């Protein structure tokens, strides 16, 4: 691409968005076991 002029400043941007469909973390395959409450 051509002619965007002289560089001026460096920045860092982190997107605040819902993840794209291919980046959604899958559900765990094994169910999470909730420990039973122990008597105090």
């Amino acid at each position, binding site marked *: *691409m*051509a*002619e*965007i*002029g*002289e*560089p*001026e*400043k*460096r*920045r*860092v*941007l*982190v*997107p*605040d*968005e819902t993840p*794209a*469909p*291919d*980046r959604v973390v899958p559900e765990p395959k094994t169910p999470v076991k909730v420990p039973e409450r122990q008597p105090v």
Partner: protein
Amino acid sequence: MNFLDIKAGETVEIGTQEAYRFWRYVFPPHSAPVRLLSWVSDKRWHPVKIVEGTTPDVGEQGIHGYKTMDDLMLSIRDPERLVTRSQISGCDGVAIGRIAMWGIIWDHARGYRAQFARPLSFISSYGNRHEEALAELRGSFFRKAAA
């Protein structure tokens, strides 16, 4: 993104930077969907997928975009000139659109170079079967958003 790229004392902004850019498009043989390619490299842009460019901290690398549509048009002057150049490289024409950029970004006088980008919209196209190319690109990249 790699948070080790952030330098000490540097401010991290939340959000993306919108910009304008142009691509080459090509109709592959056997009625396959139109393909979108970067202008300088042969990097292919796919629907849904994020594009990661080479690091903007080195030379003129990174994904390029213009600040405004006027900056883009001022730079390319005549879109038909770009069509000729795209066809020399075996493509069918040129598409113009808007992108979101993030990661490391270098601000320039009339544009940006960024680490990551994805298309937001396709505005116009020029070249062989350009109306068909524009409709196909909009359909394949933004079908879910329109549904």
